[in-house]
């Protein structure tokens, strides 16, 4: 065979290899601002000065001109999609939360105020809510916002939103009506107290029907909303760039800025590793980072940064598999709960800064937290724990470790994630249990396996957190109907169940909080969970950004913030 033939064969093979990986000829979703094909060697530097932008159609007010500009780069894990109906990914949530707006939003005092709605009205039976919508709102593709868009959005959520955490909320809506262009009326099957919380999450952001149709329903990377930012580009696995929506108007009282945000671009840089994120912060490649405990002291003193404390809504708990003997016995659960020294966990794992011990199933960051409930806490008392275990027949054997009443080694296994923090906490729990003679095994597994194995009651103990901004978290994590799914402790108690249903349907705030106090009391005494801690994010932001505000839990609000040149 001749030389050219050989050569061309090799080229052919390389081509086969490359073409196997080239995009399919089917039309890609196009409505997103077209990103250039990745050219790793030619792209601009990520931290370069603001890129020239399309001229704003409405001239910003003169006083704001000086403040507009700057790029805020935050680290992110890999967001999956900006189709807000098809994800529950927290990184995606942050991004599409800047693009889409909701009917209502939470004000700094914890009340719910209108955002896309001007006002709302609740019927006497608590089942019908009528929203009066704002008339001056346009999507960034130019199409108008109206009641039809709201209806369209929720209907789409019902159709494709199997992954959405609020689909069941929307399913509870019996009828949706649009009496006029700017009135949206929805009637629920039963009164549902957390409705405003759910509608205020960005999962309930309102889509542009025109944009969804234009994108052929593929809006994962073609997000068009009414929000303060628009999607400029998304380089897979690298960088998402959002650009300021110059036409944006902000109706919220708690912001001084009534127009578009000042910060020109919000960038999300995909950096999976904390060690690398920290190095990137140090090198100025990102402007924002949630610190881990070991770095708090150094960076909160650093003049290059401003530090913020922000409470997370949720907590981490030690759960017991209440379906599996001997943990179906509350006495066994209580005995082990007494062995847990929460303060030591806070001290060792969180350096006394990044978490607060929690007494109760609802932490201070969620409504319904009640200090008076502390008296029911199964607080650290190793002697009580030892005595209870002795009384239950778990005698100390030859190696100083306890055996079950029928003489077998007592070696409960705790299942948890592969996260470093959970690893550390379980290591410490292991040592604390050892001190009362219980030889606990730690099984860390990636979350896919953990999510699949817990409903099968394969675990004895369970260490994980929940994250939910509403006392109705009981129905997600401790109700009978969720035993085969998100109720990871498989706990089902009819008394608690009644309270959960009552809490969901009672709209009177005082009565509702009393219900959750009772629910917490049962949970604390029965001990399917031993609540451990609520994490506190220590966020540092480059000192170049000024005017950052915070909400009720310390979350950062960026609308008044600007880049000081």
């Amino acid at each position, binding site marked *: *065979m001749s030389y050219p033939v050989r050569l061309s*064969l*090799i080229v052919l*093979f*390389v081509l*086969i*290899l490359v073409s*196997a*990986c*080239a*995009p*399919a000829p*089917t039309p890609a979703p196009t409505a997103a601002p077209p990103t250039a*094909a*990745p050219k*790793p*060697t030619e792209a*601009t*530097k*990520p931290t370069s000065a603001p890129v020239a932008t399309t001229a704003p159609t409405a001239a910003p007010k003169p006083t704001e001109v000086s403040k507009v500009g700057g790029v805020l780069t935050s680290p992110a894990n*890999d967001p*999956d*999609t900006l*189709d807000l109906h*098809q994800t*529950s990914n927290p990184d995606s949530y942050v991004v599409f939360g800047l693009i889409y707006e909701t009917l209502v939003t939470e004000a700094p005092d914890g009340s719910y105020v209108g955002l896309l709605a001007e006002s709302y009205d609740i019927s006497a039976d608590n089942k019908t809510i009528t929203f009066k919508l704002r008339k001056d709102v346009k999507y960034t593709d130019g199409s108008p916002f109206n009641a039809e868009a709201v209806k369209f959005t929720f209907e789409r959520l019902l159709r494709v939103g*199997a*992954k959405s955490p609020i*689909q*069941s909320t929307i399913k509870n809506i019996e009828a949706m009506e649009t009496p006029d262009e700017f009135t949206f009326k929805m009637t629920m099957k039963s009164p549902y107290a957390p409705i405003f919380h759910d509608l205020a999450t960005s999962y309930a952001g309102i889509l542009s029907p025109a944009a969804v149709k234009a994108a052929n329903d593929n809006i*994962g*990377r073609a997000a068009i909303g009414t929000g303060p930012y628009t999607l400029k580009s998304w380089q*897979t*696995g*690298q*960088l998402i760039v959002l650009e300021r929506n110059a036409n944006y108007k902000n109706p919220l009282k708690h912001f001084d800025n009534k127009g578009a945000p000042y910060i020109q671009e919000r960038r999300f*840089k*995909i*950096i*999976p*590793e904390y*060690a*690398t994120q920290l*190095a*990137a912060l*140090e*090198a100025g*490649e990102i402007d924002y980072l949630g610190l881990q405990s070991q770095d708090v002291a150094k960076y909160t003193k650093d003049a290059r940064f401003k530090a913020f404390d922000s409470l997370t809504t949720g907590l981490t708990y030690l759960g017991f598999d209440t379906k599996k003997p001997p943990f179906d016995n509350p006495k066994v659960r209580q005995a082990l709960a007494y062995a847990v020294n929460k303060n030591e966990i806070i001290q060792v794992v969180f350096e006394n800064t990044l978490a607060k011990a929690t007494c109760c199933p609802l932490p201070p960051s969620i409504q319904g937290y009640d200090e008076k409930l502390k008296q029911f806490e199964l607080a650290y008392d190793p002697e009580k724990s030892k005595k209870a275990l002795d009384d239950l027949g778990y005698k100390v054997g030859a190696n100083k470790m306890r055996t079950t009443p029928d003489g077998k080694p007592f070696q409960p296994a705790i299942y948890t994630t592969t996260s470093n923090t959970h690893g550390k906490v379980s290591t410490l729990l292991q040592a604390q249990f050892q001190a009362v003679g219980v030889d606990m095994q730690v099984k860390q597994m990636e*979350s*896919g*396996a953990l*999510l699949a*194995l817990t409903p099968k009651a394969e675990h004895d103990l369970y260490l994980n957190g*929940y*994250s939910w901004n509403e006392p109705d978290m009981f129905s997600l994590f401790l109700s009978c*109907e*969720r035993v*085969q*799914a*998100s109720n990871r402790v498989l706990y089902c108690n009819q008394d608690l169940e009644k309270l959960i249903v009552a809490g969901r349907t009672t709209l009177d705030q005082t009565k509702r909080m009393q219900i959750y106090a009772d629910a917490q009391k049962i949970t604390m005494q029965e001990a399917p969970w031993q609540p451990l801690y609520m994490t506190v994010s220590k966020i540092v932001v480059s000192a170049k950004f000024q005017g950052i505000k915070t909400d009720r839990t310390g979350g950062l609000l960026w609308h008044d913030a600007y880049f000081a040149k």
Partner: protein
Amino acid sequence: MTRYIIQRLLLAIPVLFGVSFGVFLMAQLVPGDPATVLAGDTASPQMIAALRQELGLDQPIPVQYLRFLERLILHGSLGNSTRTHREVLVEIADRFPYTLLLTLSAVILSTVVGVLMGIFAAINHGRAGDFVTMMLAVIGLSVPSFWLALLMIMLFALNLHWLPVTGAASWQNLIMPTITLGLHSASVKARVARASMLEVMGQEYVRTARAKGLREQTVIVGHALKNALIPIVTLIGLQFGGLLGGAFITETIFGWPGVGRLAVQSIFNRDFPVIQGTVLLVAVAYLASNLIVDIVYGWLDPRIRYN
């Protein structure tokens, strides 16, 4: 030759089927399916059931595999990612250029450095230079690459501020991942190059060349090197296939948007279509590079004939 290539291509088909079936079986054995993972922390049993139905996971396993094959063969599609809802081929295509770039630069770096080290050691055979070079090579072989990556970040990015830490936007971004990925194979190549140089230099025709009074340089470059490079070609081929899927840890540490990270993430996310896609890609790359190696081989060494 053409017959040989066709034969090899035909043989690759059952291997690829085997790989895809293996991946499929393993995906079934892993606890948790896409539905449980997608439904996440706040899942309700109805939500999981609905997702299972939507993804066709409620079908019997053989039916699921046949559907996969049908889609692949009739439509040339690997399906959509269950995580992002985008075409698997698009997901891979977004990342493949970066993986290819990193792999190529690691292959080039390791080949140049490795071969030079090998030649240097062979020329200085038995002397201190040989010993030191080879010790360096063994050390390079023994250092955990992720450890090296962390140390490099600490030194070059944090202390000296010479290099950027993350991203894939400029050539400076490529330096640390390339070293991390190339170090190991540079060491292997140095060792192989030395051994084959020594072997070749001991052979009749090289000795003849020397005896004819040719300059040492001419002997080495003109006669020994070409033949000594044959085993290096094999290594390059093997490395090429392996690096595509094996760069996962490097890609994670440096935030490099490559296929390796996609593959491992898709295992954690139980994103079955993407797992299939990435594994098939690596398998194709492996088979193709093996074939290319064998062809190049026949070229470099006229004694080998394929039939």
